[in-house]
């Protein structure tokens, strides 16, 4: 008893001794390390992970990397993560390296070791970054898989590519799968001949046609609230931009031109759609009100032929693909201006934390998905499934 009390007192004394400790309501040390870079992204917080091995170790480090917490050698780290994991359980204590003050601790049990480690990673990243939406380790992605040329299927997997499974087995061409809430996908499929847009409930496999108009129906994009869809239809001749309710009712044509439009993406508030148009001669980004109106060009200086815009969930950035020495990923502020070059790749899809991107890279019919930490430009390729993987969409 005496010894226990003594230890408790000693801990308390150490706690008092910490300069306005790590763990006070507004921990000054944590605030000091939460520094934004020149673009406003949080600079990576260096940690040293120890005590884990194998899958738990690699999963935790990988998860943290895309949430602004990066594993470094001990001497460069500001925090130690003392982890412990076994089947279906993962725990860790995060210590300030010098004082050994406990910054965070958590333990999770789950159906698998990976699931527990993912939950742990989210919990650590939230505690260290102070960003409530930073967690992405337990998210999913959907993407297009080509088993062979001219055939493709819709797949889903964990955001890191693990546990991939086929959603469709139609033996036709599919394109642009995206999420409508967490339990439903929307994609374009050539199953009935021309491309039509279908919704697909994951739990039951129930499919409904969302857009099955004369001609071609493709490039679906679902608003963040899951209630509306933007898409490209050519029913009136030239492929133009349309919106409708998620069940296909309430169709409205937003653009009418002879140049052709492509690749819509919603602003997170559902008010605006960014898309590609050739109104100016070549492909360029435009913004238009989702309720109709005049399109306004979005400048992407330094980024030629921009396509595939994807609006970040925090509303600040538009990621897109430009043609600069092959396909290259860029981001540009939503107001337009100088675009920032990232890495070679195409098909960018923002993570729900507006920090990481999923994208594809490689020659046609041999593409591979990769993860990108935007501020540090760190890329991690995912394992390739069958012949080619492309068009990822990250569940928000």
């Amino acid at each position, binding site marked *: 008893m005496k010894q226990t009390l003594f230890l408790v*007192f000693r*801990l*308390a004394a150490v706690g008092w001794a910490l300069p306005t400790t790590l763990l006070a309501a507004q921990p000054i040390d944590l605030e000091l390390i939460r520094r934004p870079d020149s673009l406003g992204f949080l600079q990576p917080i260096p940690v040293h992970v120890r005590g884990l091995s194998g899958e738990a170790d690699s999963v935790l480090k990988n998860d943290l990397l895309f949430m602004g917490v990066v594993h470094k050698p001990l001497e460069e780290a500001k925090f130690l993560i003392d982890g412990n994991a076994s089947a279906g359980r993962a*725990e860790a204590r995060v210590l300030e390296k010098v004082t050994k*003050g406990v910054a965070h*601790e958590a*333990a999770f049990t*789950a159906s698998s070791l990976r*699931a527990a480690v*993912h*939950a742990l990673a*989210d919990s650590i990243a939230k505690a260290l970054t102070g960003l409530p939406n930073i*967690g*992405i380790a*337990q998210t999913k992605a959907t993407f297009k898989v080509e088993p062979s*040329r*001219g055939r*493709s299927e*819709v797949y889903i997997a964990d955001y890191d590519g693990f546990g991939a499974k*086929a959603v469709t087995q*139609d033996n*036709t*061409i599919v*394109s642009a799968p995206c999420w409508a809430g*967490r339990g439903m996908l929307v994609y374009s499929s050539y*199953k*009935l*001949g021309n*491309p039509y847009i279908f919704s697909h409930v*994951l*739990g*039951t*496999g*129930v*499919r409904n046609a969302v*857009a099955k*108009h*004369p001609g*071609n129906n493709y490039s679906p994009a679902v608003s963040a609230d899951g209630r509306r869809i933007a898409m*490209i239809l050519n*029913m*009136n*001749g*030239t*492929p133009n931009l349309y919106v*409708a309710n998620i069940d296909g009712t309430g*169709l409205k044509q937003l653009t009418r*031109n002879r140049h*052709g439009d*492509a*690749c819509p993406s919603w602003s997170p508030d559902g008010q605006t759609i960014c898309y590609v148009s050739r109104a100016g001669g070549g*492909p360029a980004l435009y913004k238009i009100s989702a309720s109709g109106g005049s399109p306004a060009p979005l400048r992407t200086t330094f980024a030629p032929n921009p*396509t*595939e815009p994807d609006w970040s969930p925090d509303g600040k950035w538009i990621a897109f*693909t430009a043609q600069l020495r092959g396909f290259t990923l860029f981001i540009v502020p939503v107001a337009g201006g100088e675009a920032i070059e990232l890495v070679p790749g*195409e098909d960018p899809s923002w993570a729900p934390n507006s920090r990481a991107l999923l994208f594809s890279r490689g020659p*046609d*019919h041999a593409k591979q998905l990769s993860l990108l930490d935007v501020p540090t430009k760190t890329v991690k390729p995912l394992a390739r499934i069958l012949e080619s993987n*492309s068009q990822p969409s990250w*569940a928000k």
Partner: protein
Amino acid sequence: MKALNNSEPHMKIARPITLITVAILALSFGVVGCKKGVQKETTLRGPGPRGITGDERGGPIIGNVPAQPNHTPIISETPTASPLDVPGQGLKQPDRNFGDWLPNTTEFKDQTVFFDYDKANVRPSEIPKLKEVARRMMTSFPGKALRIEGHCDERGTEEYNRSLGDRRAQAIREILASEGFDPGMMPTTTFGEDKPADPEHTEAAYSRNRRGELVLLSPPSNSGEQLTRDFGESKALRSSE
């Protein structure tokens, strides 16, 4: 405070106060104590908080389940009567669904139209091919239709190319219509870069892949049977039409 620990007689009196103090300190620091393991444990059930429902529990295998047969009707639209010309947007697509017509991909193989990089306008040198197609459609194939398929090379992004292939097919359709062939008998489709004619990644392959293919369509003798054969379509999905 250390003196309290060293003095047995004071211990009993001091303990409640000490414990309260420790509790307050622990709370204010968020310190759980010096126990080895982490005390607060969260148990996750099924998919995590951001996980999607349905994919990790039992139930039907995703992808093998036919579509719901009696779903809500597809977008209601008011069909526009002919003429098919929509001001400022070109020729409207035919309302008719040619999905069950019999395709003949060889008849007009030699009349495949090739395009310049990122262009959807038909080159003047390709126009004679289309004049011949229009003439033969009107003279040799009465009652038959023509499906125009737009394709692209791989140097555009995927959905951009789907739109580009769409415009290529439409450009061919408009020339054939201007030659007198009924646009209502010319459905178009786009494959973007999904179906290259030449899989190589060379300039020569790209130029062969930027094309519009013309497929002769004959009316079906038994539409239902043909539809199933062509698209491997499930009965349930077809009933949604």
